[in-house]
């Protein structure tokens, strides 16, 4: 398993896609934190969720994971991958773990960047800043969610093999359908894997994403279990399809 994991990490590192999307994650996160820290005046209670949860790495690692697995079909590298690793379960598991690890590292890098920038701007404006312990907790929650999203993306991409369809679908669910469902039926949307559960794991109030007022998100632990169930379901479906498919 370790060699396969190492091979997947080499795949990740040796294309420009990973660097480009990682750069985009850092840039968009920094832009958000700069604008928020400059334009808003958060209170001590709100500062953590208002300013330090703008880590966009969860979305980017989700897209990267989808690109990573669906790209195997798009570029037909699935053939050489399965010749090197005929056990399709181990192949898919190695890819999921690799993207989970990449999500974790990417989120930590992004969180570090936005923490430094957010602290500097808020301090210079004499606005409240979060305790270091609170901030560290937030960083870890963000990183944990990014790791989950890396694994989720691999399962999703294994089910929806068409790369553009998978990516557009994810963006549609993340920014339109789940928030829309949240505004209409928050009790249902809080189980959604793109918005409801991530908000609960990150500790962001549901109202900030347009959920109907009074929607209570799941507790972080329960949300994690629900997210793992989503990952397990997509991974199992993806593996079943991969096992049954002919690689022509």
């Amino acid at each position, binding site marked *: 398993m370790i060699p396969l994991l190492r*091979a997947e990490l080499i795949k990740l590192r040796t294309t420009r896609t990973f660097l480009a999307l990682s750069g985009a994650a850092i840039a968009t996160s920094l832009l958000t934190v700069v604008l928020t820290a400059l334009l808003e005046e958060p209170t001590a209670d709100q500062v953590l969720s208002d300013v330090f949860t703008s880590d966009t790495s969860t979305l980017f690692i989700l897209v990267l994971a989808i690109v990573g697995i669906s790209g195997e079909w798009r570029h037909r590298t699935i053939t050489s991958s399965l010749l090197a690793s005929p056990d399709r379960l181990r192949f898919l598991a190695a890819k999921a773990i690799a993207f989970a690890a990449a999500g974790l590292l990417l989120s930590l890098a992004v969180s570090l960047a936005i923490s430094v920038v957010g602290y500097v701007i808020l301090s210079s404006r004499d606005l409240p800043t979060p305790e270091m312990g609170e901030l560290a907790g937030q960083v870890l929650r963000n990183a944990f969610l990014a790791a989950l999203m890396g694994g989720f993306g691999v399962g999703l991409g294994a089910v929806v093999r068409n790369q553009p369809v998978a990516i557009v679908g994810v963006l549609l669910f993340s920014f339109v359908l789940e928030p829309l469902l949240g505004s209409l039926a928050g009790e249902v949307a809080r189980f959604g894997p793109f918005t409801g559960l991530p908000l609960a794991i990150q500790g962001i109030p549901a109202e900030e994403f347009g959920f109907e007022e009074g929607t209570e998100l799941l507790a972080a632990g329960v949300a994690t279990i629900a997210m793992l169930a989503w990952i397990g379901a997509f991974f199992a479906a993806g593996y079943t399809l991969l096992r049954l498919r002919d690689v022509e």
Partner: protein
Amino acid sequence: MAAIEIRGVSKHFGSVQAVRDLSFEVEAGRVTGFLGPNGAGKSTTLRVLLGLVHANDGSATFDGRRYEELPHASSHVGAVLEEASFHPGRSGCNHLRVLATAGRHPEARVDEVLERVGLSGAANRRVKGYSMGMRQRLAIAAALLGDPDVLILDEPTNGLDPPGIRWMRELVRSEAASGRAVLVSSHLLAEVSQSVDDVVVIAHGSLRAHGPIASVLGSPDGPVTRVRSAEDDRLARLLREGGLEPASADGGGILVRADPAAVGQVAADGAVALVELVAQSRSLEEVFFELTGEEPD
């Protein structure tokens, strides 16, 4: 036990029967040409053998084990499949590093195989900048990474220039000479006929012929000898008296359904001086056409 054993393999895609009850074996130390027209089922058979396509029936094994059951598959079998593909943004060297790592081969093998296929100078270039021939060489380098006992090459000369084709022919021969089993699929008969020991001919997914190339190229009704002498009429009479059936050959001389030794003995006994005595064999193209009912490319 044969290095490769295909037993009763059948595969259909929907209503299309790609391979039908196909059986043959490939021995170690020999080059086996896997021949058939485009669409005959060669690539499907190879993909079944490599566990990429699921057969509807039959088995395909290496030393009795399916590809997925081999403990270190890429150390046992190296394969170049048609339409070998690579991530266009990854360098040739990194492509091989990925495969070497996944297959648990020493990283030093990457440089060795790049050197072997003549791609050392282009190792760090992105694959999208490679010519078709360079991509084919990279695919061959990937197949050689694990120093495998069995080599499977699907249309390996695609995209290669004449020196590349010669290089490929020499590679195939040297791999077999070192004891490896080599299975080469092709629809280019002239190419294959120069380098194979055995042939498997398929058409419409079914086996048409299998065996050493000499026996496949020989006449189906036994050996035929072409003989010429200064006294063809007297030789023909002696052959008839010896129980053989001489016939006039196109372009002069006599064709006899017998091996050259028997014909030569009759001529010697009758004190007829010969000017030509050759075993008559058909070309691979003729045999192919006869077996498959199609014109080769």
